[in-house]
């Protein structure tokens, strides 16, 4: 991969790409619908996107870095419900390392499949993702293998030269019980070059602040807030499976699902050992649009519905 130029025009274009493109999409489709999102940023539950709905999301992670410069990593996410049992997502990643540079770090294509027809006590979802990123990617969307803080201290000029093409698989086991959601994600990743399988995990629990809907319209009712915690980290690789030389994080988050279709998430996260970043501040904003599939289909057919 060719190194991208690091000049002011490129920085301007990059920010335009990450912030303006999602904003234009948000403004272009006036069909918002209320989403009921959990506050997880890393863990996945078994709730897929509603069929035909598009969720446009922007997420941001500020991370502290010992032995290097702090960073701000961000990604745009386009999540579409193809059917009630299949959700597909496109990610575009970037990061700014303070005192270094701002760069585009790659993209991911993710698919989640719900194999069982009905709701069960434990609901499996199969997750398959293809990543095409460079070594400077810092979004920490998952932690796997022997990912440690010191990996992130290397200057962007060096890490951007490393190409990563990976297949990532997850088994998501999730339950909704008495208003609570409990989820467990087992992660297995294979770099398509000659690297060993790497493993990781993510656990989450969340609950709305109120179980019943209010009998009046409101933005600040407790039912619109979902609080949760998530714990995630690496489990080594095929040759050295376990907790040795791995990093782990614990985050406590809150999601605010507005009736207008917007969702805000906020999650302070703390590293649990010396291999972890000491602190990550993660937040995101998203908006869900129902009827997006119908509209796009209408465009391709040459008429709207």
């Amino acid at each position: 991969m060719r190194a991208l130029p690091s000049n002011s025009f490129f920085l301007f274009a990059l920010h335009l790409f990450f912030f303006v493109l999602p904003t234009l999409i948000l403004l272009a489709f006036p069909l918002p619908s209320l989403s009921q999102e959990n506050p997880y940023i890393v863990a996945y539950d078994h709730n897929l996107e509603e069929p035909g709905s598009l969720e446009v999301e922007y997420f941001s992670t500020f991370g502290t870095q010992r032995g290097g410069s702090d960073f701000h990593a961000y990604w745009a996410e386009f999540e579409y419900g193809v059917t009630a049992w299949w959700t597909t997502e496109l990610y575009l990643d970037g990061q700014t390392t303070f005192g270094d540079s701002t760069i585009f770090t790659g993209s991911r294509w993710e698919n989640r499949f719900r194999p069982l027809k009905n709701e069960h006590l434990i609901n499996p979802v199969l997750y398959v993702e293809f990543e095409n990123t460079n070594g400077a990617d810092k979004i920490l969307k998952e932690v796997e293998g022997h990912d440690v803080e010191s990996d992130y201290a290397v200057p962007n000029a060096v890490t951007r030269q490393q190409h990563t093409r990976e297949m990532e698989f997850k088994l998501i086991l999730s339950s909704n019980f008495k208003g609570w959601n409990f989820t467990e994600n087992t992660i297995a990743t294979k770099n398509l070059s000659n690297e060993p399988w790497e493993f990781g995990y993510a656990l989450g629990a969340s609950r709305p602040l109120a179980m019943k809907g209010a009998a009046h319209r409101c933005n600040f009712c407790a039912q619109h807030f979902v609080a949760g915690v998530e714990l995630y980290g690496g489990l080594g690789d095929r040759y050295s499976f376990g907790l040795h030389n791995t990093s782990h994080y614990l985050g406590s988050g809150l999601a605010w699902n507005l009736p207008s279709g917007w969702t805000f998430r906020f999650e302070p996260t703390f590293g649990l050992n010396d291999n972890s970043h000491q602190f990550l501040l993660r937040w995101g904003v998203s908006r869900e649009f129902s009827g997006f599939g119908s509209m796009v289909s209408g465009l391709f057919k040459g008429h709207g519905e």
Partner: protein
Amino acid sequence: MKLYQFVIAIALLFTGVVAAAGPQESPKQSERESVYAELKKVPEKYLGKANPLANDADAVAAGGILFEEHCEECHGKEGMGGKKAPSLRAEEVQASPPGAIFWVLSNGVVRKKMPVWSKLPEPERWQLVSYLKSLGAAATESKPPAKP
């Protein structure tokens, strides 16, 4: 393949998936019937389940708001049916016990595009049941999908 080429390829693929596989087509008559048929598959223990919010004065109003937020897009205003999903005012739905409607809400009809709504807490699902039952049956004709 260069990075930007890959991004363009993935973006096109994503757009293709949205355009080709979107649930934009109106359900056929048989699909609507099969959604109603789901009510006949409800396990015995749910058929006899009473709505715990049946005497809650706010349940219908709250259910109405939840319906507008989550269901109206597909099932139409006041559940009269839409382009994507059948009427909920049909006799098949209105004559069903509350527990049966609750079960379909909780499990969805995943193969027929009806999402699983277990992500809503149980009391909210019962509020939706209260609202649906309050609407009562209405003469709704299941029309075939509109021709292009």
